[in-house]
């Protein structure tokens, strides 16, 4: 949701600082409180992302959030989701599951072509699913989401049939995500390198060029016809061109926004959000991501966290509440759930996560960690109670890294040695792949509660073709597996919710994770950027409806 900036101008006038007020107004010729007229065509919008620059612009390959952010401008999915969480038509006009929920017929729009001229039809959908399921594509997110899709066939040019190996209550949610977006089958036939550099979709913009380490240039698709059902207008986008830049340093990113060098930034730091809320010239768009909450997973697959008492002790010794309130300055709310607060099925249980160092000390004593070495850390059989904690600096804003430092400090009081290792994305993936971690914070975004299956089902300890495995807590509990498997098969909404509730309770009470807050997704934009919204699927911005009030 968007918070319009507050106006202090009246206050300034009444206190006699009229001149200053005018000066400020003069510096910001088009504040958000100016009357907004009809959308204007044209102009170039510059977007600065704080996320890592993708190594591939095709979100089928791998499938992470930075790819979703940019690809939502040029790729589109079969379905989307509205603000209320209902699945709505996009490239597919309608869909019908069979009685046993094992076959799904999707009726496609017949007036859509890819920007390379290839027609969008049932064969194109078939080619896309095949591309995602091909191990050589190295898909992770899309591959996992399509786990139950046994085959896809073109019934007619506009009807495509998905045949499932077992019922999948999350099929539509999965297909709504940008990582399963539709690409031109002609373009997919090129080499992976080529397709990574210039993927071809049906979206409102076209990838024109990509200068690595610098910017991606997107130009308007003048023949665009396929906005999702909840878009604000029809026809082509308003903007001529979008420059998609990468500014990893948060202070530089905000400075670039303030100076007008860029128009929109993501991954805004809490202190800059607070500043922006008081500013006339910058607006704030807060859009928490769906799927999992931001949380620290405890690796239950190896010592010391293979002992539930040690996991509980770690959770009891982490003072997250104070860390969140001091560092996020009211821009984030503490979470007590495995799921994002935007998920209707999220179970929140604050009692499991009470900060209680005395209880933590007792638990460690029980677990045999009852000696202390010269540095104040607990020891058992000559081994120090150490927690390897690799931190992906590309995926955590500085405020979040400070949360980890505070957890490190409070955990030390009980005798945990938390070893924070700030790593770039590829070293971080390598540390996870070699099981070289005890605690880790890994964002995972997926539409709907099925994310629980991906994160906590024992099957997800097996790596996807990309080498990534999502069950980083390495939860291997037959009861949890059974609940999640049944829920993923259950199409009845109430029954499905009950199953996910049971599964979440069991996961939370197993002390596998320490929830922090929703995955923060704050955008700051110049006051003259109008109409920017995020897609309710995975909360990435769409520039289709955006225009410049200049």
């Amino acid at each position: 949701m968007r918070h319009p900036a507050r106006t202090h101008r009246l206050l300034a006038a009444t206190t006699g600082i009229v001149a200053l007020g005018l000066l400020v107004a003069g510096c910001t010729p088009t504040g958000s409180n100016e009357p907004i007229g009809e959308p204007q065509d044209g102009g170039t919008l510059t977007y600065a992302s704080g996320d890592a620059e993708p190594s591939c612009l095709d979100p089928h390959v791998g499938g992470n959030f930075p790819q979703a952010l940019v690809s939502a401008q040029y790729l589109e999915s079969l379905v989307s989701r509205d603000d209320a969480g209902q699945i709505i038509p996009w490239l597919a006009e309608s869909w019908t599951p069979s009685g046993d929920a094992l076959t799904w017929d999707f009726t496609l729009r017949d007036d859509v072509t890819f920007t390379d001229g290839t027609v969008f039809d049932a064969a194109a959908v078939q080619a896309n699913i095949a591309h995602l399921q091909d191990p050589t594509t190295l898909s992770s997110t899309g591959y996992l989401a399509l786990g139950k899709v046994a085959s896809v066939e073109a019934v007619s040019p506009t009807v495509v049939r998905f045949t499932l190996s077992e019922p999948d209550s999350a099929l539509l949610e999965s297909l709504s995500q940008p990582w399963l977006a539709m690409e031109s089958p002609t373009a997919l036939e090129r080499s992976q390198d080529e397709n990574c550099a210039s993927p071809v979709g049906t979206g409102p913009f076209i990838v024109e060029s990509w200068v690595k380490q610098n910017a991606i240039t997107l130009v308007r698709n003048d023949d665009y016809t396929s906005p999702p059902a909840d878009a604000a207008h029809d026809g082509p986008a308003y903007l001529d061109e979008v420059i998609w830049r990468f500014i990893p340093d948060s202070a530089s990113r905000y400075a670039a926004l303030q100076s007008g060098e860029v128009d929109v930034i993501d991954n805004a730091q809490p202190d800059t959000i607070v500043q922006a809320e008081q500013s006339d010239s910058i607006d704030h768009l807060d859009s928490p991501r769906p799927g999992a909450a931001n949380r620290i997973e405890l690796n239950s697959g190896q010592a010391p966290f293979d002992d539930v008492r040690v996991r509980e002790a770690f959770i009891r010794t982490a003072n997250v509440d104070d860390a969140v309130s001091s560092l996020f300055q009211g821009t984030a709310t503490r979470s007590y759930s495995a799921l994002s607060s935007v998920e209707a099925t999220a179970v929140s249980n604050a009692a499991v996560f009470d900060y209680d160092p005395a209880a933590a000390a007792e638990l460690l004593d029980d677990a045999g960690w009852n000696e202390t070495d010269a540095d104040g850390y607990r020891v058992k059989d000559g081994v120090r109670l150490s927690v390897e904690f690799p931190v992906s600096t590309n995926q955590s804003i500085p405020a979040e890294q400070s949360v980890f430092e505070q957890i490190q400090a409070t955990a030390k009081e009980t005798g945990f040695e938390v070893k924070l290792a700030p790593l770039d994305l590829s070293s971080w993936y390598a540390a996870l792949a070699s099981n070289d971690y005890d605690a880790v914070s890994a964002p995972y975004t997926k539409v709907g509660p099925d994310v629980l299956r991906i994160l906590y089902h024992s099957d997800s300890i097996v790596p996807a073709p990309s080498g990534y495995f999502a069950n980083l807590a390495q939860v291997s509990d037959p009861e949890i597996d059974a609940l999640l498997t049944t829920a993923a098969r259950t199409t009845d909404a109430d029954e499905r919710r009950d199953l996910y509730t049971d599964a979440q309770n069991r996961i939370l009470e197993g002390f596998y994770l320490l929830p922090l807050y929703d995955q923060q997704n704050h955008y700051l934009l110049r006051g003259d950027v109008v109409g920017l919204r995020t897609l309710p699927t995975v909360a990435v911005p769409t520039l289709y409806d955006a225009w410049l009030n200049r």
Partner: protein
Amino acid sequence: MSDLEVQAELSDRAARSSQPGRPRRIGAAEGVAGVLALFLVVAAAWPQLLAPGDPLGIDPLSAFQPPTLAHGFGTDESGRDIYTRILHGTQYSLLIGAAATAIGLGLGIVLGTLAGMLGRVVDFTVNRFLEVLFAFPGLLLALLIIVIYGPGVVTATIAVGLSTAPGYARIIRAQLISVRSTAFVEAATVLGRTRWQILLRHILPNTLAPLFVLATLGIGQAIVWAATLSYLGLGAEPPTAEWGAMLSAGRTYITSAWWMSFFPGLFIVLTIVTATVLGRSIDRRMRHA
């Protein structure tokens, strides 16, 4: 001892240390630098004396406090006292500075001596090797070493030391060659002293004195480089109270909490200025004495 030998010995001494001249007065800048140096050394050796708190102790509820009486330099994002952290960080900076300079100087002496003493083939080889190293800006060389061996305080120290070595080596070689052609060295050669005796008794002592000045200046340089590496996230790892790392953490909040980056920056500047003033002062005294 023959006459010639005595003469050689005397002129050597004259070149190395001379008669005490008029005692030079200590200037204001030198005085301030001396006091600061003393303060920094005390802070490095006994930080608890000047800042009894815990540099890593967090207090989330008093985060982002501007400088007040309770927190002279304010607090950082986790409520840690910045004054305490800066004083406890002195030991990293001074230690890295001194150790890196020692590494650079040590390696420089070896390379420079080899080039200056062992004839043209070795001189040519060492010089070309140094030129290759000079082709890279020093910091780039340090970055290269860190990329290979991974970030950390120890790697950063070694990296900075290795990157400064070529500069020292070249100065030592030049100094060595000029000392080698002085009268007292020629005298010693005529007397039949071996090459190594001459090197150890006559040449090295006369070469190394000016290096003391260079080393003092070099410590300042090494501290900046070490802070630079930490600032880039390649040196000390958070939450270590290291000046460069603190500066980097403060940069994030520079628009809302200036004190987080101002004070670490101030101490880096003060330390370098101190090292430079002292180095120049020693240099002047040696020249004019």
